[in-house]
């Protein structure tokens, strides 16, 4: 047993780092270093660059424009992006709809959507949650009624991250209201230019416009945009949520925060020692789970540990960063996204990271998953 990286892993890490150094636009890099949110143009340009190298959708098989990276290579790749720091490829595209189409899509859907999904020429948003359906996703009420060769869809969706930039949305809608909760749901895709779609911005406590609410008023979706069969949407959803799980610890992001904390001096650095220790040990946990997942087809339910601990440490680091930054971090600058000031982003980032234990399965939901699936404790 040996935790030091082998020659292949060292070489791959160096290859990724050299590529990022050579190709990441300096302004985008500076934006990330200062903890600000990159612009739409910056994100598009960077993902295009990654896509041309085959790394935008690094986990996809090569035949669909991915790099076919192994789980441990993916961890190294994301770690380099997070520590650089550079933007992640848009997860709605590469970690959600892409893998779903590869697994469930028709040949025509793959041809039509996958290349533009990898390059971000199509910008996807996720139409899952509703005002009345959060953690209890299967209680969603958006209705899709078949009418000839279309579905007529009515309802509302919420929390679309970057939804105001999106050109397409994948969504869940109820196609059989008589069936049991999970059984009557379908997974479909819609062009955001379709008449009847309205996007309302939601400003979050960090002062930023990242998420949105989307209203669907008699929106016509062609039947060919259905993924998998009618009423089979819940299977697709379970697959989507589990394929999202290999990169949830986001250890590199927390390392970046620790680096920021340490720049405030040795007293600040000393306060970060405990978080550093837990992060180092979480890396070992991540390696162990990846090792056990080698060759496995289903996601390891222990991935919930990575989500829980990973988020806990990221939040703790962002909280400590705010604490060591002191009073200077509290001044609201008029245009956060345009202000080159690292300290101005610290408080908003702390506020914003509170959502990390809510999205992608709230921490309480993760604990219930662990109790049900790993410990056999059931209600």
């Amino acid at each position: 047993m040996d935790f030091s990286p082998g020659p292949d892993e060292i070489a791959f890490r160096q290859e990724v780092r050299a590529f990022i150094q050579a190709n990441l636009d300096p302004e985008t890099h500076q934006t990330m270093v200062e903890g600000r949110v990159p612009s739409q143009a910056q994100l598009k340009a960077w993902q295009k660059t990654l896509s041309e190298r085959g790394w935008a959708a690094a986990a996809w098989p090569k035949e669909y424009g991915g790099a076919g990276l192994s789980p441990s290579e993916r961890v190294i790749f994301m770690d380099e992006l997070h520590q650089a720091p550079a933007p992640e490829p848009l997860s709605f595209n590469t970690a959600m709809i892409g893998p779903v189409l590869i697994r469930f899509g028709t040949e025509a859907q793959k041809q039509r959507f996958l290349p533009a999904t990898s390059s971000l020429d199509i910008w996807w948003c996720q139409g899952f949650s509703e005002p009345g359906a959060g953690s209890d996703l299967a209680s969603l009420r958006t209705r899709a009624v078949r009418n000839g060769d279309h579905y007529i869809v009515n309802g509302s969706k919420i929390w679309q991250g970057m939804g105001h930039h999106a050109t397409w949305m994948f969504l869940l809608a109820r196609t059989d209201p008589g069936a049991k909760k999970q059984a009557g749901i379908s997974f479909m895709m819609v062009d955001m230019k379709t008449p009847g779609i309205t996007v309302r911005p939601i400003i979050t406590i960090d002062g930023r416009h990242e998420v949105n609410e989307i209203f669907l008023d008699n929106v016509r979706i062609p039947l060919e945009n259905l993924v998998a069969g009618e009423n089979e949407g819940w299977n697709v959803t379970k697959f989507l949520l589990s394929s999202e799980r290999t990169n949830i610890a986001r250890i590199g992001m927390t390392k970046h925060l620790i680096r920021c904390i340490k720049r405030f001096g040795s007293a600040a650095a000393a306060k970060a020692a405990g978080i550093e220790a837990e992060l180092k040990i979480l890396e070992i946990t991540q390696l162990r789970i990846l090792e056990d997942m080698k060759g496995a087809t289903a996601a390891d339910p222990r991935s919930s540990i990575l989500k829980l601990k990973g988020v806990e440490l990221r939040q703790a680091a962002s909280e400590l960063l705010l604490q060591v930054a002191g009073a200077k971090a509290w001044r609201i600058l008029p245009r956060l996204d345009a202000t080159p000031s690292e300290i101005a982003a610290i408080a908003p980032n702390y506020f914003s990271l509170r959502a990390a234990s809510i999205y992608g399965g709230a921490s309480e939901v993760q604990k219930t998953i662990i109790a049900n699936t790993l410990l056999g404790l059931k209600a």
Partner: protein
Amino acid sequence: MNLQWSEEQQLLRDMVRRFVAGEYGFEQRQKFIASAHGFSREIWAALAELGLMLLSFSEADGGMAGGGLEASIVAEAFGQGLVAEPYLASAVKASTALAAAPAGGMREQWIADLQSGEKIAAFVDAPELDFADGLTGEAICVAAADIADFLIVAASKAGAPVLLALGAGAVQRDGYKLHGGGTAADIRFEHNPALVLAEGAAAAEILLQVRAAGEAFLIAEALGAAQAGFELTVEYLKTRVQFGKPLGANQALQHRASEMFVELEQLRSAALYAAVMRDTDERELAVAAAKYVALKAMRFIGQQIVQLHGGIGVTQEYAAGHYFMRLTAIAAQLGTPEAASAAIAAKGGFTSPAPYWESAA
């Protein structure tokens, strides 16, 4: 990178687990710790018979050249069975010190006596003790010093580290049993003659090795105890019925159990990390990090083992409370999370404040 256990390591694990499960049931264990010396000579002889006293020694010294992983395999199994024999003191700490000491003098004879299990040694980590006109000073709560035949002592000579060995018979010792199992003695040295095993930098290096080996062993032992106590707790949540349903049907208790599970997996990683890194140059930072995580995990798991069991968890007659006590006793030997995090900070931690591309170049 390689996360596979070797075939020999798996065989060792099977053997030690089988032995503990067969010979060290909870009832037997309670008899052993209630006996005059707080442990079983028969078990000790059987452990020697299994070859477990050879792990800390090189093949040149007639040993089996086990590393941190082999020691952690034994430790985890001992933790699961709440084994109270003085293995850590004698077969890990004192043996690691003797193994690292230069050849010559009585060293080879002592090694042979430890390997056969005929003698027991204790390790005294007390740099404040002065070796001038013999060894003088006090050391309190030294594990297994009451039953030891000889002592290996990390002391100071004219301000520099020195590693000594001396027979225990001539030393004034006040022995007692410990909460959580095991025994110890308060020692009073008064101009006791001792043999010098190593001096200066060599002695300092050996002390660091012994400390890392001891701490890695304790963390793995805590993993075993936490695992066993956790399994007992989950089983209890499934079978104990209150308010007309199993305790485990309550979400508050499900979540608590999940939190224990998360901490247990972190403790498992900490034990593995410490076991691998204790034999490397990075041992001080790595073991401090493992210790920090382990201390927090074992406190939480230990306390929750009792809490979720309710009243039965605070009785002597049931194992749950003993796992809690063992975990608490191990934590006391490892120190505090605050001390561990201070040690991490003193070493500069794992992440440099410099921008990533400069620091990782």
